């Protein structure tokens, strides 16, 4: 793959600049400055646009026909849209985790990957927001969830977990965008100062807001960054906890468990990191970023995946144990049914993908092989999707009353919206790679040895 692509890849040339700082600037800026991105970018972009079209079409059907176009049946009113929502929100956790929590823990290796992990977060949250937005049935009325004074004199019900969701995901999206944008200001300034065309200079100049790298400004900037990181950390932990409340505060066997918040958060980090590696491996390959996003970074991420995967595996085991220990026959049935009932295949797919597959990362040889990392990353994403499917479908199809049991069979529109949401995600991501600073240049520069001040 390497050799063939490099023929057309404009990013594999030598780096300009006589010092390490200039080389970093050049390595990142040339992605935006090259007249044409590599062929692989065009192919991927065409594919993503096609999927985006599928997304638009299938959502159009749902909006026109009503949400019955999805495979919802009587006991399973949540189906794919909520599975997809939880899946995408989960993906959207790694970005802020890498930027905020690893920042607070002073894990400096994060600087190479934080920018595009943050971008990934935002695009994933965009994908996530679409699903409940359409699933409410009248997608033109989502503002009913916001406290807007109206002629009926009504207010939303703030004690509902679904309303908490609106605030948690809304706040998360806003804070992530702010965090992301603020991080990019100095890099936009770099783009502005390097640009040769007036349009580019104007546009990047506008978003750089007149940043000139003054130390007095850096001082406040860094304070603000630290504060945002400390705010984003509890926020990111709260978001998936709140999402898990949608389930945990209900009385359905298999949902009504206190383990959900931590288990969901661990799962989100796990799935999010898997998505980061899936994006990072091709991105560093095609955009010539191997010197910045090194194998060392990929290996560290593989370790995080291994660790969080074990937490998730522990949670699966604990769920089983608690069901048995609770003595509640409904709870026990729910879990036996998960493992051996009509959706057993999805349960064991989940166990394979989330618990067994990451175990290969115990071996240094395997966790430093990009192909292995990429494949395990994809498997974990599949597994995390199935985790949400298992939780939603097994519990809803088999609740307390046998008279109320049913089966969920997704419709073609279900599959199309799921596939289409990846189209939206990849379209946004590819545009980001091409036009925005994919690596936080200023932050990377601050951590190379040349940046140290020597006192003699």
């Amino acid at each position, binding site marked *: 793959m390497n050799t063939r692509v490099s023929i057309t890849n404009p990013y594999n040339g030598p780096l300009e*600049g006589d*010092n390490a*700082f*200039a080389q970093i*600037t050049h390595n990142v800026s040339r992605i935006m400055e090259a007249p044409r991105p590599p062929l692989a970018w065009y192919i991927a972009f065409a594919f993503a646009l096609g999927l985006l079209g599928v997304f638009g079409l299938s959502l159009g059907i749902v909006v026109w026909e009503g949400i019955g176009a999805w495979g919802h049946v009587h006991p399973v009113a949540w189906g794919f849209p909520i599975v997809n929502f939880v899946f995408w929100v989960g993906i959207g956790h790694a970005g802020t985790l890498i930027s905020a929590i690893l920042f607070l823990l002073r894990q400096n290796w994060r600087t190479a990957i934080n920018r595009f992990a943050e971008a990934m977060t935002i695009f994933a949250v965009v994908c996530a927001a679409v699903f409940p937005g359409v699933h409410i049935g*009248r997608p*033109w009325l989502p503002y009913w969830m916001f*406290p807007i004074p109206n002629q009926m*004199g009504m*207010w*939303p*019900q*703030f*004690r*509902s*977990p679904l309303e*908490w969701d609106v*605030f*948690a995901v*809304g*706040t998360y999206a806003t*804070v992530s965008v*702010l965090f992301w*944008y*603020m991080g990019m200001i*100095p890099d936009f300034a*770099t783009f*502005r*100062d*390097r640009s040769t065309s007036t349009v580019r200079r104007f546009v990047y*100049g506008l978003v750089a*807001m*007149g*940043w*000139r*790298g*003054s*130390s007095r*400004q*850096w*001082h*406040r*900037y860094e*304070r*603000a960054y630290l*504060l*945002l990181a400390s*705010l*984003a950390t*509890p*926020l990111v932990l*709260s978001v998936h906890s*709140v999402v898990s*409340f949608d389930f945990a505060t209900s009385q359905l066997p298999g949902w009504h468990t206190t383990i959900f918040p931590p288990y969901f958060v661990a799962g989100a980090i796990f799935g999010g990191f898997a998505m980061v590696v899936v994006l990072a491996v091709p991105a560093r390959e095609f955009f010539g970023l191997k010197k910045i996003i090194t194998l060392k970074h990929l290996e560290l991420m593989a370790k995080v995946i291994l660790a969080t995967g074990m937490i998730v595996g522990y949670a699966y085991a604990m769920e089983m144990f608690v069901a048995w220990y609770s003595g509640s026959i409904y709870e026990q049935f729910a879990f036996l049914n998960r493992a051996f009932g009509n959706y057993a295949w999805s349960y064991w797919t989940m166990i394979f993908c989330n618990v067994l597959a990451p175990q290969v990362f115990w071996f240094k040889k395997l966790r430093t092989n990009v192909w292995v990392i990429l494949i395990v990353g994809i498997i974990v994403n599949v597994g995390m999707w199935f985790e949400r499917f298992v939780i939603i479908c097994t519990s809803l199809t088999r609740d307390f009353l046998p008279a109320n049991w049913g089966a969920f069979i997704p419709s073609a529109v279900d599959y199309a919206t799921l596939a289409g949401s990846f189209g939206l995600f990849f379209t946004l991501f590819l545009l980001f790679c091409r036009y925005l600073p994919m690596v936080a*240049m*200023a932050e990377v520069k*601050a951590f190379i040895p040349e*940046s*140290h*001040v020597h006192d003699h």
Partner: protein
Amino acid sequence: MSDSEKPLATETPLYGLIAEYDNPTALVHAARKVRDAGFRRWDTYTPFPIHGIEKDMGIRMTRLPWLVLGFALTGMAVATYFQYWTNSVDYRWIISGKPFWSWPANVPIIFEMTILFSAFAAIGGMLFLNNLPLPAHPLDLKERFRRVTDDKFFLVIEASDPKFDERDTRGLLAATNPVVLDDVLEDRVTSDRIPAPLIYTLVILGAVSLIPFAFIAKARAAKTTEGRVHVVWDMDFTPAYKAQEGNPLFGDQRSMRTPPEGTVALGQLHDDEHLYTGKVGDEWASSFPESLALSEATMERGKQQFGIYCTPCHGQLGDGNGIVHQRASKLKQGWVPPSDLHQTYIKEQPAGQIFGAITNGVRNMPAYGPQISAEDRWAIVLYLRALQKSQSASVNDLTDAERAQLQ
């Protein structure tokens, strides 16, 4: 710009002096000298934040954290009060039988709003304190200064600093071994006016964006004889028939369907005649049904149910002097008093008949069958039997032990 407008370079006042360095160490050493010389209006410019340069420059800690704290507390207070006011004052929601203000369920939103407000304060405050956005600056005219966002380090002392002296300051900077030392002139070239086309576009866009609102305002104020616009037809007019509506799809034109003959709802078979009607054959049963346990627990249950359903009229003792009777006989003439349940004819009635009286009502007494389950009705009868006995018991009815206790 015509030539006459262009200011002559010599007339342009000095903005300050700029020194360029190619590594952070050189910059920091220079910064310490400038700090020690007591300058105030000066700054360093770097491609990335240099850690610890605050001390070398004598920068004091920013007030930003206090600002963020203030906003955090505001967000918390606003979210708390707003939820309190909307959900428990202005539009009360009854949720799972909780009090109108049950704050633990409001905490998630309070938390999220606290974070949201603080995040806005952090980035907004940073921009505000940093005086951003700042579109133009004298340094922008320096071609070399563009490398500041790439790999070069600069130190600028402004001419407006009280300590600034062109010759001395230049000497001070020269002693720090900069790569380049240069003058910066005030910016007399860049216009600080917003370009006219931009203003026109914004004004026009602003005006256009008001049009939809104008239509809404008109629709709300004006009267019309036409009904509202139905945007989503099948949601306003559902194709489903309502229970009492006519329905052309069925022969009898009714939407509500009668269940097929012989349908029995779950738990409604009622095949135990004795238990459900109080009769055996055509006669009132004189015994209690077999499925009823004649136990202490049933007696207790009967007492409780009697207390709920019968005492208002018949009184605690069953003598017909209940609270309803007391009040009704004062208010209304011709009120038929509830029977004294200790009358002999009632005492002699078979258990099934009393059960029947509760189930179907007697003369002026309403039926309680629909409200009280069959088992509970029997329990009441059992209790009533005990009650009747209690009002006419003699010493001989007691056991020896009980008699001994009384004496």
